[in-house]
């Protein structure tokens, strides 16, 4: 396995290149395995929550919600059992980071899960792994079995008086099951259709119990924080006081060295793409990128001088998301990328909400027509109008995740769409405006949901 680039800092991936890194033996002998779980056994739940809060660990599955804060929402004296659920459904286009941890360092995840379960008093945990990732699932299952055999899972782990059972649960091919309430529905054996919130999972999640859902990478950071402390974690970040830790970044598309890299949070996007990834392909120049997976609004090449952290990217009108940077060079057609982005979300919409079900299809089909050279100039504004009507009106944010990148492409690269559109009087069918209509339909769906 390739050694880390000098600008990288492998923390969750520490030991990644070690032979048989996925075995308990190597993890314990060489990688400081389960030292954190042992330490957690002597800490109170609040002590664990506090150090994670102080470290500023943010959820790395996409939304960036502070992990310690999320844990503190779990009731202290719940009526029903508390559950810890690991989101290993990695499906955001461009993303392949959690897979590295699951396949190469599964015990680090278990170590982190023991700490997190201790913090919220969960006795049962599930790892929901995307069904397609079969090697990841087998490695994870084998690691859980090893941990049970060693007495690290089950009853009274590390003499803490706490119990923890972990079960690896396979998904079956549905991007929407990465959304935490869709995941909960799926884990319960149902279709993975997201739930209306509130109630939030922390109050009523899987099997009706208070539930913490965390991403793989988030939990894999916990052992380091418990052992080395909040200050250490804060100082790993490259930027201002609001950036802490490291982040796994997946780079794909038009660069010299695509791959996954663990960088200090706050490193400049331009430094990542030029210094670590070697810049554009020979004779090419960068055009744009999705900085945080396919749901993230595009950045133009002249906007690459931005620090890779949640707040800076939000300020730049986009997001860190899953940490997947998909790069396009000067050869690429933005309308074509927009069409493919919309097509993906149209395929993955669970169909519960009208603005999402109809909006994603609408975008995909209008964009297809434009890309075929049969679209009208007025389609561009109709697309923008549809995007506007999809945002903030649905049960989950999949509709927004489709509308945001497409809207950014229409706005930042409008001339590319205009160049392939025909004057309105030269197209056969004009497309009606969507506003109003969709909003009204959505209201009725929402009302129905509320009374369910």
């Amino acid at each position: 396995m390739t050694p880390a680039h000098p600008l990288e800092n492998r923390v969750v991936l520490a030991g990644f290149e070690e032979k048989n890194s996925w075995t308990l033996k190597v993890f314990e002998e060489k990688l400081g395995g389960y030292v954190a779980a042992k330490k957690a056994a002597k800490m109170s739940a609040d002590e664990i929550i506090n150090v994670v809060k102080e470290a500023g660990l943010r959820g790395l599955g996409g939304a960036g919600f502070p992990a310690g804060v999320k844990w503190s929402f779990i009731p202290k004296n719940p009526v029903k059992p508390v559950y810890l659920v690991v989101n290993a459904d990695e499906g955001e286009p461009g993303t392949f980071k959690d897979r590295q941890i699951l396949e190469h360092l599964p015990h680090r995840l278990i170590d982190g899960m023991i700490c997190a379960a201790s913090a919220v008093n969960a006795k049962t945990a599930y790892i929901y792994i995307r069904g397609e990732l079969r090697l990841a699932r087998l490695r994870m299952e084998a690691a859980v079995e090893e941990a049970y055999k060693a007495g690290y899972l089950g009853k009274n782990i590390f003499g803490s008086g706490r119990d923890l059972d972990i079960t690896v649960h396979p998904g079956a091919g549905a991007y929407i099951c990465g959304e935490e309430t869709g995941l909960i529905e799926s884990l319960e054996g149902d279709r993975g259709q997201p739930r209306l919130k509130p109630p939030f999972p922390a109050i009523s999640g899987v099997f009706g119990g208070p539930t913490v859902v965390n991403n793989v990478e988030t939990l894999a950071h916990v052992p380091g924080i418990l052992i080395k402390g909040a200050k250490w974690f804060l100082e790993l970040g490259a930027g201002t006081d609001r950036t802490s830790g490291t982040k796994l970044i997946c780079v794909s598309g038009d660069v010299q060295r695509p791959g996954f890299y663990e960088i200090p949070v706050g490193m400049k996007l331009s430094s990542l793409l030029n210094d670590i990834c070697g810049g554009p392909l020979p004779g090419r120049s960068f055009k744009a990128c999705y900085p945080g997976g396919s749901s993230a609004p595009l950045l133009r090449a002249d906007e690459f001088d931005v620090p890779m952290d949640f707040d800076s990217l939000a300020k730049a009108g986009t997001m860190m998301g899953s940490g997947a940077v998909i790069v396009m060079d000067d050869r690429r057609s933005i309308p074509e990328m927009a069409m493919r982005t919309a097509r993906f979300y149209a395929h993955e919409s669970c169909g519960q909400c009208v603005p999402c079900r109809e909006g994603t299809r609408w975008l995909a089909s209008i964009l297809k027509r434009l890309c075929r050279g049969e679209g009208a100039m007025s389609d561009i504004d109709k697309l923008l109008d549809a995007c506007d009507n999809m945002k903030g009106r649905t049960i989950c944010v999949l509709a927004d995740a489709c509308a945001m990148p497409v809207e950014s492409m229409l706005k930042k690269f409008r001339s590319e769409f205009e160049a392939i559109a025909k004057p309105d009087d030269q197209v056969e069918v004009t497309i009606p405006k969507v506003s109003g209509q969709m909003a009204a339909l959505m209201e009725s769906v929402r009302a129905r949901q509320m009374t369910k």
Partner: protein
Amino acid sequence: MAYAFSEKLEKKFQWLLTRYPQSDAVLLPLLHEVQDEAGYLTPDAFDYVGSRLNLSPARVKEVASFYSMFRLNKKGKFVLQVCHNLSCYLAGADDIVKALEDKLGIKSGETTSDEIFTIERVECLASCSTAPVMQVNVWDYHEALTPEAALKIVDELRSGKLAMPSFDDRVAAGGEA
């Protein structure tokens, strides 16, 4: 009811039931196992799984049909799943699909008349830095593909040179390399 769990699967089923507070939750892992054994999910299998979990067959089918990995129809012995999502598209996934379609004389979504190959376009397979990617039978990842390499894989699968590892073989993946 023609379908019933094998002895091995019955054991797995009983174990699964111990892992969840509600029996419905075993549905997805269970359907995976059934599909691994039977190749696809037949109406018989829905009846049987439903009867074991106290669910109507229609309910089992309704859940199964939500998920793209569950097969409700027979497919080819080798299902060639080519990712057509963003990074793979940038790396030339369309050329891979076209080469396969031309060679096998079918469109994606179809199965060859000898029932050996099915071509499917699928979403991101989480291997985007080594695009384009093709997964065969949810087992083997073939990465950084060219049309030529994809066609060679088809030939090797057909001639038996590239055997598909069985489930048990891969359990060894948890052991040392």
